[in-house]
């Protein structure tokens, strides 16, 4: 059983039936889908509501509105006042939060299992009855601008990534940061938020994921009771906004206060559109694992440890997305090494795969990690709910997960070599560099440490 052929087989052998329970699904008359996975290891439940609307559905001038609306969802309805949502979840012994991505916006609560009904009531209420008060908006938009300063403007590596996306994509909305451009935040109005809410927050554009110590029939009844009365509305047509083919290398440099340079290489790559028929995205996932999946994978072994060219080097690729895909290579050069030297080192690693492929044991190792990771994921209800929600967000039915793991298991060394040759071409490359700028010489305390009283 060192390298089992099938995740399903391994899981059946080692995981008790309870932990491996399959999901149950029902669609309400208003179009809302409800997906339930029973996991009875602890008396808790994760409840999530996912909306198929994210940064990529925004238009110029109101970038960031998906995320702003996410903030406003906590600011009250006629029956649940501002801040009351959080207060009720806390009183239930729960935790809650929300996240906005390019592809979706999702809300979740983790609560003791007997509180599920109350959480559904709260989510159903704000799915339709959000107040969107102008004064609340005026406060909250300032909070969002602080969030942008905290997470992007004062973080050189985040800023580099933002600039990279804006150059790699020219037509597709993936060029825009989820948090939004500052100018758009500064000029956003409550009417913009309301327009967004009216467009996208409707049961036929949403799905509910419940994982935990629950009976699925009971969950379906609760969902019918709380969400069933909301009526469906027609959704706007989604324009594809396909990115034109890139036909030449793009380079950019960002100067920011920092000490470590960064090189980030972004190659256009496909993502899974047909789980059964696609081949390349699976091979790219395995390539990513062979390059940077563990501490002795190629990047760390060669670039960090043997050549001492980098203090860190990594690869990143996500085979699922609503929009176009990117395969990233990135790292920081060691002291005394330059950005061009690191770029050459990263390119040499790709060339080595193009010319000589990958070894059988490297591929087997990546697959062993993949299988173990599937089992470790069962330790977290939240992670299981996230997996279901994310697959659904890109239009892949969550029950296809097992099939995707099988496809990954079947990837051959030849396929890995083939995708290395096919997609890692300069025509498809955008390369971003962080050029670190020394801080002004003001780091000494401006005032000595002085008693206040």
């Amino acid at each position, binding site marked *: 059983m060192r390298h089992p052929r099938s995740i399903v087989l391994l899981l059946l052998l080692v995981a008790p039936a309870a932990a491996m329970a399959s999901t149950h699904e029902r669609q309400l008359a208003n179009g809302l889908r409800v997906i339930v996975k029973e996991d009875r290891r602890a008396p808790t439940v994760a409840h999530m509501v996912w909306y198929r609307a994210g940064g990529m559905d925004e238009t110029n001038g109101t970038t960031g509105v998906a995320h702003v609306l996410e903030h406003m969802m906590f600011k009250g309805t006629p029956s649940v006042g501002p*801040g009351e949502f959080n207060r009720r979840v806390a009183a239930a*012994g729960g935790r809650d939060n929300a996240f906005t991505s390019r592809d979706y916006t999702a809300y979740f609560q983790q*609560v003791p299992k007997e509180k599920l009904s109350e959480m559904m009531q709260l989510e159903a209420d704000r799915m339709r009855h959000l107040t969107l008060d102008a004064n609340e908006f005026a406060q909250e938009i300032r909070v969002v601008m602080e969030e942008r*300063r*905290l997470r992007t403007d*004062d973080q050189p590596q985040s800023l580099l990534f933002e600039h990279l996306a804006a150059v790699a994509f020219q037509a597709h909305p993936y060029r825009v940061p989820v948090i939004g451009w500052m100018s758009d935040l500064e000029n956003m109005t409550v009417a913009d938020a309301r327009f967004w809410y009216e467009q996208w927050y409707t049961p036929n554009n949403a799905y509910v994921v419940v994982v935990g110590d629950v009976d699925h029939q009971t969950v379906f009844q609760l969902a019918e009771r709380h969400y069933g009365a909301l009526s469906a509305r027609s959704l706007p047509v989604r324009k594809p906004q396909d990115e034109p083919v890139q036909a030449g290398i793009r380079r950019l440099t960002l100067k920011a206060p920092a*000490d470590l340079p960064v090189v980030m290489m972004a190659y256009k790559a496909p993502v899974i559109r047909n789980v059964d028929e696609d081949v390349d995205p699976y091979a790219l996932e395995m390539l990513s694992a062979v390059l940077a999946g563990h501490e002795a994978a190629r990047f760390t072994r060669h670039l960090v440890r043997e050549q001492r060219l980098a203090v860190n080097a990594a690869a990143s690729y996500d085979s699922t997305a609503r929009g176009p895909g990117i395969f990233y290579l990135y790292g920081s050069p060691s002291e005394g090494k330059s950005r061009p030297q690191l770029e050459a080192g990263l390119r040499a690693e790709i060339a080595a795969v193009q010319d000589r492929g990958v070894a059988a044991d490297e591929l087997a190792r990546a697959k062993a990690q993949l299988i173990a990771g599937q089992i470790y994921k069962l330790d977290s209800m939240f992670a299981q709910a996230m997996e279901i929600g994310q697959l659904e967000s890109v239009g892949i039915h969550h029950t296809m997960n097992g099939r995707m793991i099988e496809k990954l298991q079947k990837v051959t060394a030849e396929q890995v070599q083939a995708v290395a040759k096919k997609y890692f071409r300069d025509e498809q490359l955008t390369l971003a560099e962080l050029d670190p700028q020394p801080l002004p010489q003001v780091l000494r305390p401006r005032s000595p440490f*002085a008693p206040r009283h």
Partner: protein
Amino acid sequence: MNPAKFLTCLCLFLAAAPTHAGPTIESWQTSSGARVLFVENHSLPIVDVQVDFAAGTAHEAEGKAGVASLTQALVDLGVSGMDETQIANRMADLGAQLSGGVDTDRASLRLRTLSMADKRGPALDMLTAILSRPTFPAEVLEREKARTVAALKESLTRPDVIASRAFWAALYPAHPYGRQATPDSVKAILRDDVIAFHRANYSGSQATVAIVGDLSRAQAASVAEQLTAGLPSGGAMAGIPIVQLPAGGEQRIAHPALQAHLLLGLPALRRGDPDFFALAVGNYSLGGGGFVSRLMKEVRDKRGLAYSVHSYFLPLQQLGPFQIGLQTKKAQASDALRVSREVLADFLAQGPTEAELQAAKQNLIGSFPLRLDSNRKILENVAMIGFYGLPLDYLDRYPETIERVTAVDIKAAFARHVRPEHLVTVVVAGE
């Protein structure tokens, strides 16, 4: 030091409910003197092991700041008979995950493995070798020193790191908790320093082993015995000295960032202090209860001054910090600081309202099952109980202890632990 990580540490303590007991913890000593805590749980084919040593940064000798982290980082980068690549490949082949960390008090090594014998056995053999037979290769040490220095120099450009380091230095001016690695201190560390630190601080009699998952009691006993048999046999080590409270004061550090980073606090709480419960309940209302705390309402909701604002107690072996922290755009730094101070002063003067007290208890007790609903969370709790020598029924008794806390207790506990004359303020990138 990462505030988010500290927050997690504290959250682990806030676990309890009247209707749910904690996990059943079995405990014994290995023949080498290590303390073992074990929770048997067969619901998943996973075994989690954490081995803790009193080998955090507070155990570094003066002038050797950085040796604790380097030692911890190097133990799995070479053991007798295997180099770093062979070790990492073996772990990956098995699907096993090795992790760990260092804080002021502790150095930890953590292994997650599948429980089938053909995976678990070799994975635990690797962990045994890492614990008992690290070789600390000289060339690997030099490389890791260079990487540490690079990361340190980068972090010293970040306003949050600058603020945190200044804060800890000001809270603990003459105490090991205030000493922090610098590029120069790391460069000066020799292989002999690492070997000596390992020998003195990674001994069997000082180790705590926490095991959670798919093993029987007998299997767990043999695992613990195997892991600790070859550890160095060091004697009792020097403890961490008592903390002297600092004079209060304010420090401002200029920085080009758009946002100011504010920290406010003082050394406040030891692990095992009975006031912990009153402080935990009180802090929930002050700044610990996420979106429902006073600080969040006043700073974020009413004024839109910050994305996040928090307060927490981080109990350590000796007095760990109480801290309020937030970030806001430069021009608002004074406003935000004033509001935070007012909220704190009001809380110290008045204590929580009855409604706040009930809301805090409701959440802290009601959320008990969520604190323990995965093997990983159980491991974190059990390892902490083991390392700090808390009673094994600590989690079981938590709800009733929380339930008994009164508003008077909270006000009195805050008065004892948060004395305004010792409050230290650090502002980085303020106007």
